[in-house]
């Protein structure tokens, strides 16, 4: 093992949170090293418009995602089953390489609701005790505290949208349920298409409050506060699962790296995988990390501050592999690392038209209209048997021919009739979907697999997950609400896509895996404190959606980014002056 010269800060992983953290801490004058296990990637060299829209290469052959021949995870629905490795990604698609999953996201940029951050105390106060087995808790940070940081991310990305709550004043045409914004979106909303017009009309007929979806696909040429240039979206419909070739989607590459990569106090090391966090003899102080390069050479990298910026599943696993904190055991309820793994529950209804063209090829990852009337605690849950909810939206994200072809109820799943139905409906159908929250339960968790190992001989992460009673009740309700809107959208017929049976890890649902390194108010209920600082090792911080104690009914990126800015501000203003615990246990 070769020992390398020390740095002030080492970042493990270099996607959205790594780039934001690096930008903030290099600004503070620190020497920052980011270690990324994937490769360098940039727009003109890796996903220019000549190769970006290649369905086979990027999605079906998974070139855009974490390679699971070297490291994957094992999956089971419950503790009675034996977990098996996911040899091919399905239900979710973890990113790898510079920019992480932020390269292949859709760009739907939501803020969680104020009540989402206090889900336990809010719901308990309104509806009484949480059901048996539900382990929902408060984040330990509030929406108001995060608002300036949400705002910074909006400006960084040039988010397009329409504010519905400007400093407490409700604005017509925006989302009236959202937390107060300190300013209007930096850019106007995306252009709506025929499908969104139908959705908006139908939602209004039902007395709901439709608004344009918040978008990180740029609605006009934009120069962000760092001077980085983002170009207007061309509505090509290759966002989620693809890199944007036109500089039109906010990512680390388009918003931060042009500035960060020029800094003398920043170093990026790619194709090096961190194997462990090292600690001193007290176990209370991280001394750095060990990592391995593609030739198999191992290094010891000393650092004063270690910040985990990898995907939530990888952050949780690295904590377990390094023996920091006790891994959660669902049988006893002991331990915290790996606890409260959550996902999301998607339900949908498809609308088919006879003679109206939806033209999904004029699409973008965050081109859509939504209602938030059934999200969080925006509606009365009395007697419904669940808490939480989700937004319901009509997005026109794409018409990618291999992936997206809706067929009406009763169509065979293969053969000439299927082909004919695909052709008939390709340009004349759309989907309304609900993006449902996921409440934590004691049974769903992450730990290390006892059998399967990665290429370096380290145990794989094991995921134990199934839909919960709350998920199922919520999904039924959301499906009904979604179908109500779909039926009013003027189509020939509506097909309801039900979410039934156990969670299946193969069909794609969403890459919003959360929990495992959860935040909270005391060392007894969380892995990190409100500043995302490890309770056990104060010079270790953990970013990412792994800190969510439970998942809300929104896409997580903006909340992840706001928490990163929030943690960076705490490091700059408090920790650097007085290194140690920022919250006394």
């Amino acid at each position: 093992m070769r020992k390398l010269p020390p740095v002030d800060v080492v970042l493990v992983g270099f996607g959205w949170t790594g780039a934001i953290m690096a930008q903030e801490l290099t600004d503070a004058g620190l020497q920052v090293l980011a270690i990324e296990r994937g490769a360098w990637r940039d727009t003109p060299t890796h996903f220019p418009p000549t190769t970006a829209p290649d369905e086979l290469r990027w999605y079906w052959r998974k070139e855009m995602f974490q390679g699971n021949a070297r490291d994957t995870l094992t999956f089971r629905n419950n503790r009675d089953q034996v977990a098996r490795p996911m040899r091919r990604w399905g239900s979710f698609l973890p990113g790898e390489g510079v920019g992480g999953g932020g390269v292949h996201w859709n760009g739907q940029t939501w803020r969680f609701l104020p009540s989402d951050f206090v889900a336990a105390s809010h719901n308990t106060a309104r509806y009484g005790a949480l059901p048996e087995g539900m382990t929902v808790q408060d984040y330990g940070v509030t929406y108001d505290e995060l608002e300036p940081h949400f705002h910074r991310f909006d400006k960084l990305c040039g988010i397009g949208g329409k504010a519905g709550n400007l400093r407490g004043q409700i604005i017509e045409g925006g989302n009236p349920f959202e937390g107060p914004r300190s300013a209007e979106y930096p850019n106007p909303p995306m252009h709506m298409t025929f499908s969104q017009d139908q959705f908006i009309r139908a939602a209004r007929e039902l007395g709901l409050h439709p608004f344009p979806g918040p978008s990180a696909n740029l609605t006009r040429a934009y120069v962000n506060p760092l001077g980085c240039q983002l170009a207007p979206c061309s509505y090509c419909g290759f966002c989620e699962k693809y890199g944007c070739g036109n500089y039109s989607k906010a990512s680390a590459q388009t918003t931060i790296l042009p500035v960060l990569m020029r800094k003398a106090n920043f170093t990026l090391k790619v194709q090096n995988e961190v194997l462990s966090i090292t600690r001193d003899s007290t176990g209370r102080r991280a001394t750095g990390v060990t990592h391995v390069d593609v030739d198999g050479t191992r290094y010891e990298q000393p650092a004063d501050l270690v910040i985990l910026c990898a995907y939530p599943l990888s952050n949780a696993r690295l904590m377990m592999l390094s023996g920091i904190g006790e891994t959660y055991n669902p049988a006893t309820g002991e331990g915290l690392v790996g606890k409260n793994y959550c996902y999301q529950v998607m339900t949908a209804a498809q609308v088919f038209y006879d003679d109206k063209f939806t033209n999904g090829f004029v699409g973008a990852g965050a081109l859509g209209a939504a209602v938030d009337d059934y999200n969080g605690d925006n509606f009365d849950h009395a007697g419904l048997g669940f808490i939480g909810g989700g937004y319901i939206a009509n997005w026109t994200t794409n018409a990618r021919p291999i992936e997206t072809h809706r067929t009406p109820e009763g169509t065979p799943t293969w053969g000439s009739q299927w082909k004919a139905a695909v052709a008939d409906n390709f340009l004349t159908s759309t989907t309304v979907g609900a993006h449902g929250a996921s409440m934590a339960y004691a049974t769903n968790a992450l730990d290390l697999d006892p059998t399967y190992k990665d290429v370096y001989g380290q145990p794989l992460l094991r995921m134990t997950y199934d839909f919960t009673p709350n998920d199922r009740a919520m999904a039924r309700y959301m499906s009904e609400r979604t179908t109500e809107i779909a039926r009013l959208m003027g189509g020939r017929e509506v097909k309801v896509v039900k979410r039934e049976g156990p969670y299946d890890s193969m069909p794609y649902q969403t890459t919003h895996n959360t929990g495992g390194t959860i935040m909270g108010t005391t060392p007894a209920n969380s892995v990190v404190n409100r500043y995302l600082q490890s309770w056990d090792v104060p010079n270790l911080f953990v970013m990412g959606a792994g800190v969510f104690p439970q998942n809300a009914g929104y896409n997580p990126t903006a909340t992840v980014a706001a928490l990163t800015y929030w943690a960076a501000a705490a490091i700059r203003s408090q920790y650097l002056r007085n290194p140690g615990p920022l919250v006394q246990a």
Partner: protein
Amino acid sequence: MRALLLATAALAALSTAGLAQTTTYSQVERGRYIAATGNCQGCHTVPGEAPYSGGRPMPTPFGTIHAPNITFAERSGIGRWTKDDFWQAVHRGIGRDGQRLYPAFPYPHFTKMPRADVDAVYDYLAALPRVEKESPPNSLPFPLSWRRLMAGWNLLFFTPGVYQPDPARSPEWNRGAYLVDGPGHCGACHTDKNLVGADRQSRHLQGGELDNWAAPDIRAGRNGGISHWSDAEIVEYLKSGRNAHTAAVSTMAEVISYSTQLMTEADLSAMAVYLRSLDSPARSAASPPAEAVMTAGRDIYADNCSACHKADGTGVPRFFGPLAGSNKVRDPNPTTVIRILLEGARSVPTNARPTPLSMPSYAWKLTDAQIAAVASYVRASWGNAAPEVSESTVRSLRQTLKEAEAH
């Protein structure tokens, strides 16, 4: 330990020598600025190596010349040069040993610089870290390798002399003329050359070609290549590397990166004032390409180009260059248009605009005939009326670039 002491003593001796020559902080800073106006770093630095340590190959039509090390290194640099030696080189093109310099070093432009400015550059270079690094030998064929030949060249094409202001013009115009034709040496690329590589003064700044790039007409007066740019847009381009009409790529990217982005707005404005005063002869409109070529070009353009450059060629100003009215696209010389289609292009990242917005290469995707068609189409559409591009021109440039890359 003894070796270390000796090394320290040697360093001390060096720095004493340095002290004798360097003057005040402000003189060094003045020199830094003047060196920037001359883009000295662009030629005298191999990207990624120590500034001014030389060795960068300069391809010329006559062979490759390597810019020398101009740090004050004793052996391989100019550490033994006096201020008079330096002045002789910059002002007259004569090296310390009396050798004639090749005009790849633009002394025909630098001769306009006053002695005080040249001295300041000397003081600045003297204050930089000294790096011992030999430049590779030049590869000029005989008789060009015979430097005394340059005496004759100078007799014919070189008039030494410090810039003399034109009293009939404003101080701003004079400052601009001095910067453009003196240290800025814009004509080195943007003025066409005669058979022996000297500027054709009758075509001053009306466009030239070097190293397989067409440097466009940069006159801003009547019929000039950038007559449609405002003064503010000229300044913006030189400061940030882009404006509503275009973005800098290739050699101009270096000029902006090392030189003009570091210059004051007042100096850049002065350059704009001067360029504005220069008219060009009217261009005759070329006859449009055959309908079949236009149809093919239009279809290729729609599929490959229109997402960024827009169906009507208006692009996204400051992001993706508009092609309608573009100085590069309309250039009678199609080399740059073809080359960008073949190789792609990268807008220069600057302090003001750090994003290197880039266009991908189409060499792997389009045939010579397809590139010729789409180049002809954009050169003959939306008000552009530049001559058609032939398949053989594309083929020959593709081949030349391939060979250049192999070297």
